[in-house]
């Protein structure tokens, strides 16, 4: 150990108490510093907590605002959709109304045409019916007259034949009977057959009259069918309308 080391040791012996004194003197300063540090830390913590709280508050505010916006948007969206739908409904109603108007107009036009056609058809069909029935009646009448003439002729000739028989066989009753029976048979043949033929003719004419009548009975249907064609086809396609006429007449 050298001199310097000894000096050093001596120095430390001297300085140690001084240091102790200084430390003692510094102690309040340290305590105050500590307090300041503590205070600082507390403040820091408080500040941080405040920041955190503010942050949370802001975040929650933002979330609320966001939710509100979303809700508002949803409401607005829904309202808008409703509005659009109701507008479409209105438009549809307008369109329906327009269509209804058109339909009713065409119905009125249809009825008007139907009335016009009715007048024409009733006149024409009615007149034709009468005319044809009259002709059928005339036909039956003239045929009946012809049959009647034949029957009259047969009766007249039978009378003449009977006279001849009586003249020829005045005393032969047996012969008279045979010949008279032959005349009778001939006469009844012609009368009965003529009668049957007249009945058959009447039946044929009855059937014909029935067809003529059914034209008028089915007149309405006939006109309606005609009108359907009238509406379906354009004005200049009369050709097709007339081509289909045989189908239209339903008698």
């Amino acid at each position, binding site marked *: 150990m050298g001199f310097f080391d000894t000096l050093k040791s001596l120095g430390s012996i001297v300085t140690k108490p001084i240091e102790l004194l200084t430390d003692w003197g510094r102690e309040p300063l340290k305590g105050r510093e500590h307090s300041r540090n503590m205070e600082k830390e507390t403040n820091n913590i408080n500040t941080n907590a405040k920041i955190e709280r503010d942050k949370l508050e802001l975040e929650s505010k933002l979330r609320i605002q966001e939710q509100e916006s979303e809700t508002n948007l949803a409401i607005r969206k829904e309202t808008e959709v409703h509005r659009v739908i109701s507008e479409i409904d209105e438009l549809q109603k307008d369109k329906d109304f327009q269509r209804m108007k058109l339909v009713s107009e065409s119905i009125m036009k249809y009825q008007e045409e139907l009335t016009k056609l009715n007048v*024409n*058809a009733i006149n024409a*069909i009615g007149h034709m019916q009468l005319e044809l029935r009259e*002709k059928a009646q005339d036909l039956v009448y003239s045929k009946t007259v012809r049959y009647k003439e034949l029957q009259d002729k047969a009766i007249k000739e039978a009378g003449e034949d009977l006279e001849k028989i009586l003249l020829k066989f005045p005393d032969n009753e047996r012969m008279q009977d045979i010949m008279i029976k032959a005349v009778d048979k001939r006469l009844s043949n012609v009368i009965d057959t003529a009668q049957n033929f007249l009945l058959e003719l009447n039946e044929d004419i009855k059937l014909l009259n029935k067809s003529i009548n059914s*034209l008028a009975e089915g007149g309405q249907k006939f006109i309606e069918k005609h009108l359907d064609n009238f509406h379906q086809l354009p004005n200049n396609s009369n050709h097709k309308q007339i081509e289909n006429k*045989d189908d239209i*007449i339903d*008698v």
Partner: protein
Amino acid sequence: MNSKLVDLLSIFKQSREKLSQDFLSESLEIFEPMFKYENDNDLMSLSMEKYFTGYINYHFEVFLEYSNIDIEFSKAMLSFVKTFNINVSDSNLNNGKELFYSILKQKESFLQEMITVGNIDSDKFNKLSYLYQKDKTLFDRELNSLKG
């Protein structure tokens, strides 16, 4: 208006041509009944009426070749059919001309049916007349051959 009138006159001209052509070519529809029904006035007049109904309707067929003369044609046809004693009192034939055509067509077929019925009956009558005449002649022969 003039072109409409020309069209209208053409329709009537074409129809008249058909009428004269039918006579010139001795159409069966006209000439056959003249001989067939020379002793049957009813069937003769029914046949004539049938032919003329067809002739009237022919105008409607020719009319199809023309357009835009609906009203003129209807008016003209109305006057025309009246000359054939066909009664259409409503002057508005315009909308009903197809209908009118159908009615006339139907009339033609009814007339034909009537002629057919008349024909069948004529055949029956002829047969009956012949059978009667046959019976009568045979009877006369028999009576004459017997001695009294």
